[in-house]
């Protein structure tokens, strides 16, 4: 026989509180007014607990048939009686269906976000890159460029600059429609080169020092022009901006931790072309070298020069980590680049020396 417990009850129609007696019987919860005004019978299937039972607050119940009604009983024995009759009211942890649903919802949201970032963005960014006006691309490129060279001086020795212009013209002359590229050498020790939105190309001094001939530099330049021609930098820029926007959206109440993660991730990604993009740029670069009547094997020679250092597994500034991290396996690229071997040098010896010493 279930015990009878004092409780208070409000029917959900007004805020009036009534003294009642509650009993957890076999057929459901019985609530009887002490004044005899009313009685309620809630079946266990309809009963819901407002909060799980806690020692610091009275145990409150409602029924799905009267969702605004509240029964409040401050008695551990009553809770025990009810637990015996309707254990489903006392599920904890993963046994609660709402918790399981919420977890599913969160995982789904995370997956959707991930899918959007990794699949949606690349597909969106390519067509978008072609819609961006040239002036905008120029401006973005300039911003990125100053960020990448981060305060390092731009090398501007007059004869070196002239030699660089000769090399650039030689490569881009044959292009129709003409392609606008703006090549600078930054005074940094890294063996690296970047293509940026708006046709900006940055070659680091370290790369000039490492190169054995002007053709090797021309091959790298042709490769970067390939990126420019395919609008890869802009595509990555949009990709990163999109990711930044999504991260901002989702982390909304941005803790600075999340913002930092987003920022760092974005910058890393910006210079990290996909392998397909690198292959496209490689093919384009080879074609450009061929059209200009230059040695298409130069690329291979340059990579061969890098290779032993790359094998050491270092990723530091000295061996041009950028070129190893994202570019197709070296062997494959050397193979692809050695297949064609013709042509003459892009710069005469004096010009090549001038270019090498462009940073003074």
């Amino acid at each position: 026989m279930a015990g009878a417990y004092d409780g208070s009850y409000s029917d959900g129609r007004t805020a009036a509180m009534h003294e009642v007696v509650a009993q957890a019987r076999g057929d459901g919860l019985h609530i009887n007014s002490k004044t005899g005004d009313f009685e309620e019978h809630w079946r266990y299937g309809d009963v819901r607990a407002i909060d799980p039972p806690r020692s610091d607050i009275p145990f409150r119940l409602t029924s799905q048939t009267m969702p605004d009604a509240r029964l409040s009983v401050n008695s551990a024995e009553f809770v025990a009686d009810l637990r015996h009759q309707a254990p489903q009211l006392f599920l904890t942890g993963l046994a609660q269906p709402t918790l399981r649903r919420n977890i599913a919802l969160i995982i789904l949201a995370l997956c959707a976000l991930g899918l959007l970032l990794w699949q949606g963005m690349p597909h969106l960014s390519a067509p978008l890159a072609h819609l961006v006006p040239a002036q905008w691309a120029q401006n973005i490129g300039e911003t990125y460029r100053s960020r990448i060279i981060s305060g390092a001086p731009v090398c501007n020795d007059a004869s070196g600059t002239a030699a660089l212009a000769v090399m650039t013209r030689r490569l881009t002359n044959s292009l129709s429609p003409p392609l606008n590229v703006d090549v600078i050498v930054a005074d940094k020790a890294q063996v690296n080169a970047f293509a940026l939105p708006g046709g900006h190309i940055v070659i680091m001094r370290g790369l000039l020092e490492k190169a054995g001939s002007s053709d090797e530099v021309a091959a790298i330049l042709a490769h970067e022009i390939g990126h420019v021609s395919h609008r890869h930098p802009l595509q990555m820029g949009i990709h990163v901006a999109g990711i930044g926007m999504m991260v901002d959206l989702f982390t909304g109440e941005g803790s600075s931790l999340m913002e930092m993660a987003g920022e760092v991730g974005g910058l890393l990604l910006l210079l990290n072309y996909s392998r397909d993009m690198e292959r496209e740029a490689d093919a384009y670069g080879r074609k450009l070298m061929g059209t200009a009547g230059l040695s298409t094997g130069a690329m291979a020679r340059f990579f061969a020069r890098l290779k032993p250092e790359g094998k050491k597994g270092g990723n530091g500034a000295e061996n041009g980590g950028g070129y190893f991290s994202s570019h197709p396996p070296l062997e494959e690229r050397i193979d692809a680049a050695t297949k064609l071997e013709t042509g003459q040098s892009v710069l005469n010896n004096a010009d090549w020396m001038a270019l090498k010493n462009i940073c003074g």
Partner: protein
Amino acid sequence: MNDDAASPLELPPLTLQQRGRAGALAPIVLLNTFLNIITLSIYRFWGKTKVRQYLWRQTYFMDEPLEYSGSGGELFKGFLAAAFLVLLPMAVVSNLAETYLEIESTAFAAFSVLFYIVVYSLIGMAIYRARRYRLSRTAWRGIRGGMRGSSGQYAVRYLLLWALTLITLGWAYPWMRQTLFARLMGETTFGNRPFLVVAKLWPLYRIFSACWLGSFLMFAAGMIWLTVYSHNDNEFKVVWTADISFWLIAVLWFLPIPVALLWYRAHEINHFAKATTIMGVSFEMKAGFWNLSGLVSINFLIIICSLGFGIPFAQLRTFRYFCDHLTIQGNLTPEWIEQTRMEAPTIGEGLADAFDLGAV
């Protein structure tokens, strides 16, 4: 059992108490922090709900706990709606404007003004809607709260009054505050019963003008000191006064506004409480400069030191502050408060989340 049950239930005193403890809140906050980090903060909607459930159920009106019935899923849906229907289009539009309009053109200026108008209206709307959502999920004895006005009308006033406050160098501030409070509070309902707000404006202006003039005089004094100091060409004196100048300017320029604001706010809180009634029940707050400063500065420290994760502790302190300093007078007849007939919003405060208006 009591045979004397026919006697009417004795009404508990009209008190509002916050019985929550930081120690009991801590496990909830810790778990939320952990889950926020591993879910890239998507868990925050559910976490916020858990905190609210705690704060609400530890708030006792007439010895009966409040109840928060909102869910994380509702907040999440509200967020998705705001993100994709409002924020994303706005981000796209502003990006396009920055791209296609000259930054220094009149067209861009016009766009910027329009953009701010939209943002400020949305903020006003967000404040109102968030309040509506929270009240509709707040129940006492099963009776829910609500907002009976329109968020659009509130948004218009919010925008215009803020603009007026800027134009009048702050002199419209008390009027703005009181008008907005009267709208928010005067359109708040508890069950079918509205709150009433009847307030005079001049008591606020008495305090405000003292605050404004005081701050202005201090600022002017700083300006005068700087002018005198900069015309002092005696080198010895310059060195001697440099330190003093720094501290003097710091005190004269940066101290008055927070101090004046806190002083004004303490008066304002008391003034607003006095102006509010419901069913003949009146309120009195005893906020003062020192206790309010204590609340605000310690909350500030809590939030800063915890990188924002400790916000719930600050909220608990704010709740307790209001409950501790509030006295309620009059006779409340709960039977006269009937359940609200207003429809509750189905999704939660997405806009407020988007604009970071996380009051609670």
